[in-house]
């Protein structure tokens, strides 16, 4: 297999996304060759997932004041920040007949293969996690997504955290934290990892890029040939950039599923337990478990991850929590029944907030600070 390799840096969010979608469309039509694009965005931009509401996910005032570009990916998942220290991976391949959601899980694992090989070569024991992450010991290192263009072309998107400015991320992306203090920064940092942290040295973006490219060459048994966008590709990408990725209709489109947040603080013999949840309809979109108990942060991060995109129904939440406790003895620092009770309480409060918001059409659905602890 031959794979064209395009590398570019300092890309605007609107062009970066438009170019990826253009390539997927053209590769599906056979107008462009299968392509691996390894690139960085101009620092910084915030990219929400295809179905997210920007105002629920992003601190727009901060972004406007600090020149942080905001855009919407064609792929699903949560909001991310991208810039010079995050490697964007866009692999575009022709889809097979009948490629659909039934195959998406296989495809995600298959397409992650190049990244996993590259990370392994760096000595990073990363693994594919459930829907759309690559993690190291419970901490997110790479976010993943797949988009299928109408031509059948497939776009595999990944954002590799070579490094991460955690305070900036907390200023840009809305989190369950009320304030951004050292404790919150430490807590968020414990839930993610970076290539530099894992390898323990200041590895350059170009070195990471070269290793990821090699990883894909090996995983796909492909011969890589460096190239630029063709004139036709660049022209089409610019048209799509103007018509879609620079339009408010795309960037600020809204989903009909309402968000709501709730918090609960519960005193336990082990310490204070602070639980914050955000619901998207009947799903738990985000869960934060904090407090002054002693337990391994990565065990907590893994439990939070298991509860992401999980039904909010109490019995199903309790079953997942029980399963995590069975697999993760490190969670023993938090009494399980107290945790289930706190989750139940926070979910109930979020549901009540949603009901109140529905009866007041002018209220904001997401306002974690407003939920009474």
């Amino acid at each position, binding site marked *: 297999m031959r794979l064209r390799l395009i590398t570019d840096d300092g890309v605007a969010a609107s062009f970066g996304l438009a170019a990826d979608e253009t390539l997927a469309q053209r590769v599906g039509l056979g107008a462009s060759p299968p392509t691996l694009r390894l690139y960085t965005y101009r620092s910084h931009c915030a990219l929400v997932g295809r179905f997210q509401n920007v105002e629920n996910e992003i601190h727009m005032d901060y972004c406007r004041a600090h020149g942080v570009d905001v855009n919407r990916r064609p792929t699903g998942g949560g909001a991310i920040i991208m810039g010079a220290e995050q490697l964007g991976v866009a692999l575009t391949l022709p889809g097979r007949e009948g490629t659909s*959601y039934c195959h998406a899980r296989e495809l995600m694992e298959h397409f992650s293969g190049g990244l996993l090989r590259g990370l392994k070569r760096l000595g990073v024991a990363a693994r594919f996690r459930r829907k759309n992450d690559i993690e190291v010991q419970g901490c997110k290192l790479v976010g993943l997504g797949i988009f299928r263009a109408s031509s059948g072309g497939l776009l595999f998107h990944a954002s590799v955290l070579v490094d991460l400015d955690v305070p900036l991320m907390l200023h840009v992306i809305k989190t369950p934290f009320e304030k951004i203090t050292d404790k919150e920064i430490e807590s968020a940092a414990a839930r993610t990892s970076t290539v530099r942290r894992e390898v323990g040295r200041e590895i350059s973006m170009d070195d990471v890029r070269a290793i990821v490219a090699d990883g894909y060459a090996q995983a796909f048994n492909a011969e890589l040939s460096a190239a630029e966008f063709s004139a036709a590709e660049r022209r089409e990408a610019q048209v799509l950039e103007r018509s879609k990725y620079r339009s408010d209709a795309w960037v600020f489109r809204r989903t009909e599923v309402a968000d709501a947040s709730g918090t609960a603080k519960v005193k336990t013999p082990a310490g204070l337990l602070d639980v914050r949840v955000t619901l998207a309809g009947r799903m738990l979109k985000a869960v934060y478990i904090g407090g002054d108990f002693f337990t391994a942060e990565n065990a907590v991060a893994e439990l939070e991850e298991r509860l992401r995109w999980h039904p909010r129904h109490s019995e199903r939440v309790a079953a997942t929590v029980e399963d995590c406790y069975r697999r993760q003895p490190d969670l023993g620092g938090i009494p399980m029944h107290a945790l289930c009770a706190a989750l139940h309480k926070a979910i109930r409060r979020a549901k009540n907030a949603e009901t109140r918001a529905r009866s007041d059409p002018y209220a904001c659905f997401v306002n974690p600070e407003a939920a009474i602890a």
Partner: protein
Amino acid sequence: MTIEFDIPDDRYYDATHHMWTQPQEGTDRVRVGIDALGLQSLGDLAYISLRAVGDAVQRGEAIGTLEAAKMTGDLIAPVSGVLAARNEAALRDPMLVNDDPYGAGWMVAIQPRDWETESGKLVSGDRLPDWVAGEIERYRSQGWVE
């Protein structure tokens, strides 16, 4: 534990994309939804988007997209025609599809262009038991179900 799948025999199934289709009595429309095996691949649905009423749709092409606990992907039209209705309740509460995939969790209604021909490409009637058994076996071999 062995999971049982409910595949009602009163409708037509797209063998590749696990979408069901059922003619609506007394109308010129068919309803479309995801079958239980398709939902097993997806997990609980978080978001759905659907194309607009009045859009021309082509069998095999996307009529919408979805994001679920396990993955994000397209919803593929099992028949060609005109999109005649969308289930607005499912758009607001996608887990309706998980709760009741063959009833309240329907996705769209389509006015088919050539039902006679295209329904022949879907699995129904006597062909259903073998197809279902084969698909469950495939899911097991992939490790998707026990």
